[in-house]
C-alpha cells in the first residue's frame, strides 16, 4: 500500500519540538512557539527601549519629530479606542493592559511575515491571554458590583438559570481564545498548503495572500480581541459607569 502516497504528506505547519528537558520526571519540550514568542518579545523590548531613549532626549518646548511623533499618534489612537468603549472614568486603569496585549498579539499575528510560525497559532499562547481577561472580568465584577451584585447577575431572570449563566461565563475565555487561535491557524494552514502543494508556481503572488492572511486578518483579530476584552470588562463594571 506504500504506492498510494498522499500528496499532502509534506504539508507542515505543526509545532515542532526543538529541545527536550525533564522536570520532576515529566518530559517537556522547548518548541518553535517558545522561540517565536521570545523573538516577538525581544522586538517589542528593543522597540520600547529605543522609544524611551528617544523620548527622554526630547525637550518639552520642541515639536516632536520622526519616531517620537509616530509614537504619540499611536498612544493617542490607543487612548481614543479605549475611551470610546470603556468611558472616560475607567479607561486609565485598563489602557496599559489593552495596549500590551494589542502590541503582543499584533506582532505575533504578523510574525508570519518574518518567516516564523505565528505564536498565536498555538492554543497554549491564546488560552493564557484569555485566562488573564477572564480573571480581569471577574475581579472587576466583584470589585464594582460587590458579592450581592454578582449573585443578582447570576440569578438574572430566575434563580433556576444560575447554572446556565455560570456556563456562559466560562464559555467567554474559551470562545475568545479559540477565535484568535483558529483564525491565525487557518491562515497558517492555507499558506503551508499553498507552499507545499503549489511549490513550483508559488513565485510572487503568495505575497498578496500573506498581505490578507497575516496583515489584514491579523490586525482585525487583534482589534476584535481587544474590543471584546474591553466590552466584557465594561459590562462587568456594571451600571455605575
Amino acid at each position: 500500500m506504500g504506492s498510494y502516497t498522499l500528496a499532502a504528506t509534506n504539508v507542515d505547519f505543526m509545532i515542532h519540538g526543538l529541545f527536550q528537558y525533564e522536570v520532576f520526571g515529566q518530559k517537556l519540550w522547548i518548541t518553535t512557539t517558545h522561540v517565536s514568542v521570545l523573538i516577538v518579545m525581544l522586538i517589542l523590548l528593543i522597540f520600547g527601549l529605543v522609544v524611551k531613549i528617544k523620548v527622554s532626549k526630547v525637550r518639552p518646548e520642541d515639536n516632536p519629530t520622526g519616531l517620537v511623533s509616530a509614537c504619540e499618534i499611536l498612544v493617542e489612537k490607543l487612548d481614543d479606542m479605549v475611551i470610546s468603549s470603556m468611558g472616560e472614568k475607567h479607561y486609565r486603569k485598563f489602557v496599559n493592559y489593552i495596549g500590551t496585549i494589542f502590541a503582543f498579539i499584533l506582532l505575533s499575528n504578523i510574525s508570519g511575515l518574518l518567516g516564523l510560525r505565528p505564536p498565536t497559532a498555538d492554543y497554549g499562547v491564546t488560552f493564557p491571554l484569555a485566562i488573564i481577561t477572564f480573571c480581569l472580568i471577574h475581579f472587576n465584577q466583584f470589585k464594582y458590583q460587590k458579592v450581592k451584585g454578582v449573585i443578582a447577575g447570576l440569578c438574572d431572570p430566575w434563580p433556576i438559570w444560575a447554572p446556565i449563566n455560570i456556563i456562559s461565563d466560562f464559555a467567554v475565555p474559551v470562545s475568545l481564545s479559540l477565535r484568535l487561535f483558529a483564525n491565525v491557524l487557518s491562515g497558517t494552514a492555507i499558506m503551508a498548503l499553498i507552499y507545499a502543494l503549489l511549490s513550483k508556481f508559488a513565485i510572487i503572488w503568495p505575497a498578496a495572500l500573506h498581505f490578507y492572511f497575516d496583515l489584514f486578518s491579523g490586525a482585525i483579530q487583534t482589534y476584535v480581541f481587544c474590543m471584546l476584552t474591553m466590552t466584557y470588562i465594561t459590562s462587568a463594571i456594571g451600571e455605575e459607569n
Partner: protein
Amino acid sequence: MNQVTGVELIKACSAIGAGLAVIAGIGPGVGQGIAAGFAASAVGRNPGAQGAIRSTMLLGQAVAETTGLYGLLVAILLMFVQPLAR
C-alpha cells in the same frame, strides 16, 4: 486492487468528515453578508457615523465568524492530526 485496511478506511472517512465539517462556513458567510449589508445601509442613512458603524460591524462579524471557525478547527484536526487513525 489491494485490500483496504482499517486505518486507511478511517483516514478516508476522516477526509469526508473534514469536508462535511467546513459546511459550517455557510452560516457565518450569510451572517457576515447580512451584517455588512445593514452596515452599508446605515452608512447611507448616516454618513457621519462611518467609523462607529465600521467598528461595530467588524466586532459583530468576528463574533459570528466563531461558529464557522469551530467547523474549520474540526476539519483541520481531522485532516492533519487524524486523532481517529491512531
